[in-house]
């Protein structure tokens, strides 16, 4: 299976690649997009900063160099939905894309991948679509977790769910800490999803949009209330 990680930075792409590269039967590429059309100076400054933040920048540099040498590290200079970027993606002949960049995908980009692009959404689908779904789940007393599904051009409306995993919000003292934990599950869950996709007779759960709602950015009033709920749960759980 040919897989491309669509990342917003080299360090972000390599982080996921490290989890997946040893998966038998997977041929892996890291595609780095120019998110928000940054200037080369800003883009590479951010790359360096992001690499330094990992505290393992030497390992990261070695990995990145190794991928680049094998032509498995592709740096896009144009936006992802630009014709030249789509052509470069198409040339990779990938089966699956893994979303790891802060970009919105158009149909023309999604269709380049034979099976589609997977997204590790930090909410339980189909109930929680959109933004701030982890905090909305806590506020409404629902379980938190991550859903890996094939995206379409809508907001978390892609019809095929590959897997869903619940992670309790208890033990996390604040919304950023909870969300960081959920975001950090992406690499492991992408690995599990790819394993599932490579099994014969894989079946998808339906993401029925009518069974859920779209959520939006949460106000600071409600975010503070969620922080209090998390703090209370921390005290209760000891």
């Amino acid at each position: 299976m040919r897989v491309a990680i669509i990342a917003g930075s080299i360090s972000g792409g390599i982080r996921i690649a490290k989890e997946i590269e040893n998966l038998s039967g997977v041929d892996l590429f890291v595609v780095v997009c120019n998110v928000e059309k940054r200037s080369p100076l800003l883009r590479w400054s951010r790359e360096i900063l992001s690499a330094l933040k990992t505290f393992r920048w030497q390992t990261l540099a070695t990995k990145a160099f190794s991928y680049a040498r094998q032509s498995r590290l592709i740096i896009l200079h144009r936006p992802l939905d630009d014709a030249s970027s789509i052509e470069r993606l198409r040339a990779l002949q990938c089966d699956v894309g893994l979303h790891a960049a802060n970009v919105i995908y158009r149909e023309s980009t999604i269709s380049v991948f034979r099976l589609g692009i997977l997204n590790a959404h930090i909410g339980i689908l189909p109930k929680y679509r959109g933004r701030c779904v982890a905090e909305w789940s806590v506020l409404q007393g629902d379980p938190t977790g991550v859903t890996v599904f094939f995206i379409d051009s809508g907001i978390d409306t892609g019809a095929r769910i590959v897997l869903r995993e619940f992670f309790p919000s208890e033990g996390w003292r604040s919304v950023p800490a909870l969300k960081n934990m959920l975001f950090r599950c992406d690499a492991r869950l992408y690995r599990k999803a790819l394993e599932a996709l490579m099994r014969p007779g894989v079946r998808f759960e339906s993401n029925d949009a009518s069974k859920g709602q779209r959520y939006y950015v949460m106000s600071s009033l409600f975010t503070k209330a969620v922080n209090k709920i998390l703090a209370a749960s921390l005290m209760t759980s000891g």
Partner: protein
Amino acid sequence: MDLETALSRPVPLDRCEGLLREALLRRRAELQKSWKHFISAEYLASLGSLAPEVGSFLSGQDPIRDWRFVANFTWMNCEATFLDSLRAIALGGKVEYQPSNTSPSRLLTADLNKLSSSERLQALCDRYRCPLNIGLPSESDVAEELLRQLMVPDRAKLEAGEEIDADFVLLKLNLVGIRAMITRELRLVDALNYFYELPKRSLTRLQTSPRLLALWLCIYAQLLCAPDW
């Protein structure tokens, strides 16, 4: 982890509701003191006879009317104009309405979005002449679209300092607020929370429509005091 384990919460749901209600009441107390920051004296004066009513409503602690029992599953007709009915609802007054035997055909959001901004404003004022109708289950698609517009393009424009149609944004905030009073949906009240929290420079741009701004604040005040979130 399975769903059952994930659902075993150390914080009971009523405790979550208590924390939520506490936050809303704190916001109400804040609004009671700071509402004049949203409408300058000059704009308030332009409201004429509405100004003292709004002032007393926002500064005081008027009993809150529960609109859930007024809006049932039947379309309602109002003799009064849209603005008069909106005023009555916002100030917790009496709305004169008649249940209708027929309801208008479904409003398709795609059709609504094809209209110009002023046409959309008019279409919504006509359809919701009795504004309580926005709370009916049949209006969920329209309400969902109004919420989306507020929380995606309108919010982005306000935050970026771009040009906005203050009348239309405030009309949507009023309608979404009324639906929240009827459905008690947290996403809807949070849209109002979010707009209330926008930087002052963004909100002062809405002052060009002082009547709708004042009525929106009164609806928001009612929502903050609602006892059962």
